[in-house]
């Protein structure tokens, strides 16, 4: 799996039109380089060696934590990624918590009042929430909070106050789609016989919903949330661009702009690895929490439920 990932990340760069050596020289000097200069640099960078050799070299070093040196900045790719990982991670985790804080009440209320106006409202809210592009949502929130009320910084990064708007942007979208999952998951549990038994025993409605149903719906909800983490990081990239926040998003956009393939390769490998590791952890956690269905979920379900 990881071999495939690294191969894909590495081959991405070979898709690129143009010769990195030539581009690099052009960037350094501003003049079109001569053929000799290009050839010399190609030799120095190892670009003249065949693809499998270069790939093996890159992977060999990557395993040791060395992803090469960025073309545009001359810094080590590993350093750039590690420096920015924290900021993006902070944003994604905050957004995830916000999303859960929105989704669980909304989904639970919708499921327990199924078919009522509250249910319809929550469905429509989550539909709209998932359909607004995050960049549009980001600017709407800026207009509302930072400009309208003037108490939150509009852009940049720094303290907690800089985190609120980006996290809210991402969290609302995440909450909207999680709310559907929470609702579906609750409906499933509420249809079980033991809920009927509890009701028949005279347990109050609220207590049934919270103590019996939510508790049982919790495992799938947590699992799905975990599986969606990769998607969330993808969303964070856009949100970072909107708010001018430092993080992996800014790194990858700059890398694309500068055609810095070494950096792009390293970034993709990091993302893929994170994603695979998160899914693995979720799998393990899930089968621990509920051994009955630990193996029942197919990857098709996972792909479509979790999304990417």
């Amino acid at each position, binding site marked *: 799996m990881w071999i495939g990932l690294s191969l894909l990340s590495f081959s991405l760069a070979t898709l690129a039109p143009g010769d990195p050596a030539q581009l690099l020289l052009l960037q350094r000097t501003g003049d079109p380089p001569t053929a000799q200069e290009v050839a010399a640099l190609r030799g120095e960078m190892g670009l003249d060696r065949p693809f499998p050799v270069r790939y093996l070299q890159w992977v060999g070093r990557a395993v040791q934590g060395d992803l090469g040196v960025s073309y545009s900045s001359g810094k080590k790719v590993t350093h750039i990624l590690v420096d920015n990982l924290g900021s993006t991670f902070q944003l994604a985790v905050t957004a995830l918590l916000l999303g859960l804080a929105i989704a669980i009440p909304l989904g639970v209320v919708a499921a327990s009042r*199924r078919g009522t106006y509250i249910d319809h409202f929550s469905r429509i809210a989550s539909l709209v929430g998932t359909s607004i592009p995050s960049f549009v949502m980001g600017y709407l929130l800026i207009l509302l909070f930072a400009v309208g009320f003037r108490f939150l910084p509009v852009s940049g990064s720094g303290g907690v106050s800089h985190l609120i708007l980006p996290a809210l942007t991402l969290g609302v979208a995440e909450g909207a789609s999680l709310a559907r999952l929470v609702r579906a998951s609750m409906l499933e549990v509420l249809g079980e016989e033991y809920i009927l038994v509890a009701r028949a025993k005279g347990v109050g409605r609220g207590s049934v919903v919270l103590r019996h149903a939510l508790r049982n719906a919790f495992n799938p909800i947590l699992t*799905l949330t975990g599986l969606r983490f990769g998607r969330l990081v993808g969303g964070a990239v*856009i949100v970072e661009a909107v708010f001018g926040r430092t993080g992996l998003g800014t790194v*990858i956009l700059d890398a694309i702009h500068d055609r810095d393939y070494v950096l792009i390769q390293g970034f993709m490998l990091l993302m*893929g690895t994170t994603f695979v590791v998160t899914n693995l952890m979720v799998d393990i956690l899930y089968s621990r929490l509920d051994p009955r269905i630990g193996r029942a979920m197919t990857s098709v379900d996972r792909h479509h439920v979790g999304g*990417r």
Partner: protein
Amino acid sequence: MSSLAVGRLPDMAHPGRGDGKRLWTRNNPLAVAGFVLVSAVILVALAAPFLGLAGPNAIDALHRLEGPTLRHLFGTDDLGRDVFSRIAWGARWSLAAVGVATALIMSIGVSLGIIAGYYGGLVDEILMRIVDVFLALPSLLLALAIAGILGSGFGSVLFALIAVWWAGYARLVRGLVVGLRERDFIAGARALGGSNGHVMIQHVLPNVLPPVLILATIEMGDLILAVAALGFLGVGVHSPDPEWGTMVSDARPFFLSAPRLMVLPGLAIMLTVVAFNLIGDGLRDALDPGSNPIR
């Protein structure tokens, strides 16, 4: 499995055609609304050249950054271009990208899925490992990296969408074919002397097509969003071409003085995505009555 049926795809192998259709139109006004909206967007896209609008790149230098007037229904942007016209032409761009991409994604995904499922063995193993790798990367990031590396233009957006989305279809179809392979009518077709190619096209393909079309509808909204996001991040189109995401991005310097420049294309994206998602939800509900909200 039952407690995991949360939002999962409906039972794709047995779409239960007749029932599904009836439920769908009668009990689901939202899905009908989705249909109407999508048709409206398609109509605007098709009619864009014939609406008597100023061209999407035509500059009305005397009327820059103007609010809505009779002459410019949605006003003009910083260069004096007609916003309504740009949104209408933008619809062409988005729909064309998503339509062509979906057709190609389906062809590739379905062919590879059928081959993997039908032959099984080593071919299957290799293809599915490749699928795993593609599914392991967050879709938007992979699309961003591919389109970014290829440079701007319609072709690179198309390529990025295909590269990212084919794998899900291949996985779905392969699963369906593995189920079909053991069925009697396939064995019968082969016993009658049908070649592998004949059996795959005549007997397997028609059976996997309905679920594939459903999946395509469900994912349409995601594709529109991805195209807009690429445009917004500046890796999609060249700037003068009208594209909704790019329009939002171009409006950034003016979003305090003329928020409409950003809100209108934003609304266009949102409404189109809502419309496709309504249809997708309708299909999902119809095919998986357990999750039907109205019932």
